[in-house]
């Protein structure tokens, strides 16, 4: 019963991304949008994904949900999803269900975590609503066999989509069908995934969802262009929660909104998460947002994850020079006046990233090794906090003493002054 290899699978892991690679095959070169990305999402966790434009965070989100369009292609890696116990899980009454997987060639390459049975059939039923998560006790004795999302057939993917994994797009105006009312856009999801739910219960559910996000139910009859920006975003969130998914991916959901509405939406999200206990992957370029919202933050640069830490650790001790730069590119409201420096330069061309560390041309603390050796994501030297960083400064093989936060601060200040001292 206990699967030795992935002990944490038994506790709380919901999604495990391993060595994911996504390329854009363009005629003028292959763009490596996402390179060798691995991370884990626990149940009930909010994982923040931060980075500049072009760092690959949106591509990552689309890759996980397999919504990439050509010329984008996933060229390697696995995305393991750990569904809840097989009983009480899915509600499938349709003939869309494929027959037991051992006969389906698509899943023959599944990564199994050691159980003798092989993959679980997606065959049992799930309640419309879910009980609140409590630590790890919710687990039954059934084995947790992960599903590799990249191996699923279109039909299986359709089943999982929205039911387990939902995505909130950046621009609600573009993501809502302009010629359908909000109610129809909620209902068609219900009709597709819950065919046995009666018309009345569907309408009821739609009203519930509107109330959940704080929109008056009579707006169900409205078309998207009749709603304000904030309402549209809430509507999108409501639609996303329609089937009570396990994972909600939010791709810059508040970027297009003003700060006041932004705050409302974020508060809303946190409240909903308390209530419904889903996990969130929150993608944004605004690091300060994540510091408030997320449990853990992963920072991406040039298609790779360069730092991963809890929000507290990241705020107090940003390790990677890039993280430091990001954090400190916003002036503090209080505190002494100081010279600001942004991070000079611009992100690299992902068709031909510089050798070694992709950040080295812009890094105030770069040294020789940085130009030739690619740093890997590893725990910072002597650090037990669980923080991972991909920087040679913390690699005992190349750097004796890892820099402290004040060292980073001084380096950036020197940059702002016009020269760099290491």
């Amino acid at each position: 019963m206990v699967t030795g290899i992935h002990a944490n699978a038994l506790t709380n892991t919901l999604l495990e991304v391993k060595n994911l690679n996504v390329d854009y095959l363009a005629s003028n070169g292959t763009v490596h949008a996402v390179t060798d990305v691995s991370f884990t999402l626990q149940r009930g966790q909010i994982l923040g994904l931060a980075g500049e434009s072009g760092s690959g965070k949106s591509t990552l989100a689309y890759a996980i949900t397999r919504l990439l369009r050509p010329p984008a292609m996933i060229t390697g890696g696995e995305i393991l999803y750990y569904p809840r116990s097989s009983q009480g899980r899915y509600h499938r009454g349709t003939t869309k269900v494929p027959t037991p997987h051992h006969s389906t060639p698509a899943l023959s390459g599944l990564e199994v975590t050691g159980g003798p049975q092989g993959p679980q059939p997606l065959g049992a039923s799930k309640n419309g609503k879910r009980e609140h998560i409590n630590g790890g006790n919710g687990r039954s004795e059934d084995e947790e066999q992960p599903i590799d999302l990249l191996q699923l057939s279109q039909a299986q993917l359709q089943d999982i989509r929205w039911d387990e994994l939902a995505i909130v797009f950046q621009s609600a105006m573009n993501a809502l069908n302009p010629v359908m009312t909000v109610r129809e856009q909620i209902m068609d999801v219900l009709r597709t995934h819950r065919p046995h739910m009666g018309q009345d219960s569907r309408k009821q559910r739609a009203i519930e969802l509107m109330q959940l996000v704080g929109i008056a139910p009579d707006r169900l009859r409205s078309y998207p262009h009749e709603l304000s920006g904030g309402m549209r975003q809430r509507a999108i969130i409501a639609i996303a929660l329609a089937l009570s998914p396990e994972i909600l991916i939010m791709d810059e959901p508040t970027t297009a909104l003003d700060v006041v509405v932004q705050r409302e939406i974020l508060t809303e999200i946190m409240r909903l998460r308390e209530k419904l206990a889903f996990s969130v992957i929150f993608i944004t370029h605004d690091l300060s947002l994540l510091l408030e919202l997320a449990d853990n933050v992963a920072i991406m640069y040039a298609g790779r994850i360069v730092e991963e830490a809890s929000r507290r650790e990241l705020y107090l001790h940003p390790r990677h020079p890039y993280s430091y730069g990001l954090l400190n590119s916003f002036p503090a409201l209080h505190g002494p006046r100081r010279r600001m420096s942004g991070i000079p330069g611009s992100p690299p061309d992902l068709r031909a990233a510089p050798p070694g560390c992709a950040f080295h041309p812009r890094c105030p603390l770069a040294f020789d090794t940085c130009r030739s050796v690619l740093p890997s994501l590893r725990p910072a030297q002597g650090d037990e906090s669980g923080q991972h960083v991909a920087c040679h400064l913390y690699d005992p093989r190349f750097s004796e003493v890892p820099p402290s936060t004040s060292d980073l601060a001084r380096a950036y200040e020197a940059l702002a002054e016009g020269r760099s001292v290491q």
Partner: protein
Amino acid sequence: MQTQEVPRPTSAAPIAHPPSNPLHTRLLSILLAIWRAMTLNRKVAAGCAIVGFFIVVGLFGPFLVPYNPNATSPLFIAPPSAAHWLGTTVVGEDIFSQLIYGTRTSVFWGLATGLLVTVLSVLVGLVAGYFGGLTDDSLTLVTNVSLVLPALPLAIVLAAYFPRGPLTISMVIVITSWAWQARVLRSQTLSLRSREFVTAARACGERTWRIIFFEIFPNEISLVVAGFVSTTIFIILAWAALEFLGLGDGTIPSWGGILYWAQQAGALGGGLWWWFIPPGLCIATLGAGLALINFGIDEIADPRLRPERPVKAANARRNSKQTT
């Protein structure tokens, strides 16, 4: 720790500013862009080849043709032969010569009228779009009405009353077909007008007509070219139609005119295929060439419409797992 030279931070993102190169450099780069566009996209290249062919025939054909197209001969309704490649008409005129001369008429009048229509629609569209207000309202009303009135019947009515000839037909077509392109350009101008480079130009005190024609217009060139091509297709077809109805000058050879005389002589019932098939084929081919150019321009302007070509070597080196 070593001291290192680090490049100065680069400046902030550049603000958009109007092109400052001298005119001839800009023109040259425009021409180069056109040439690249013509040869890069398959459709455009094919279309240009076809149109180019007809232009060449129109220019040089009449010098190489054996007969005078209006010269009658005793050889009536003769099928194609070595002497008359496309046979003769009911009064013995050589059809092939007529076709070649007709090419010159049809192609050049077509292009000239197309140019005229384009100029008119550019003027109306840009002025209406830029000035807004009452000017815009009234011009738009005129445009919309002109759009909604059916072109061919109106053209027929006008051509029936005025003296026959290519000039009448040309004017009539101009009157009935300028509106569509004007409307397209107006909406494009409207959206460009609120862009920052126009505001910047106004703030610099640039004169209005300069703003319209040297700032805004260059951004719309692809639209204008596409419009010119579409309009020319329509013009060539409409011209042929009007000629076919007998509203042209019957003595000047043109493709539509040949068909008119063929119809009058009952070529269809008499099975004289060599009389009425070649002119129509020419019209269709020239039209197709222009249509190809148009769709090619569409593809260039909107990358989403471009044909998805398979990427070659990169695929071979990929892992086995490839999904989207």
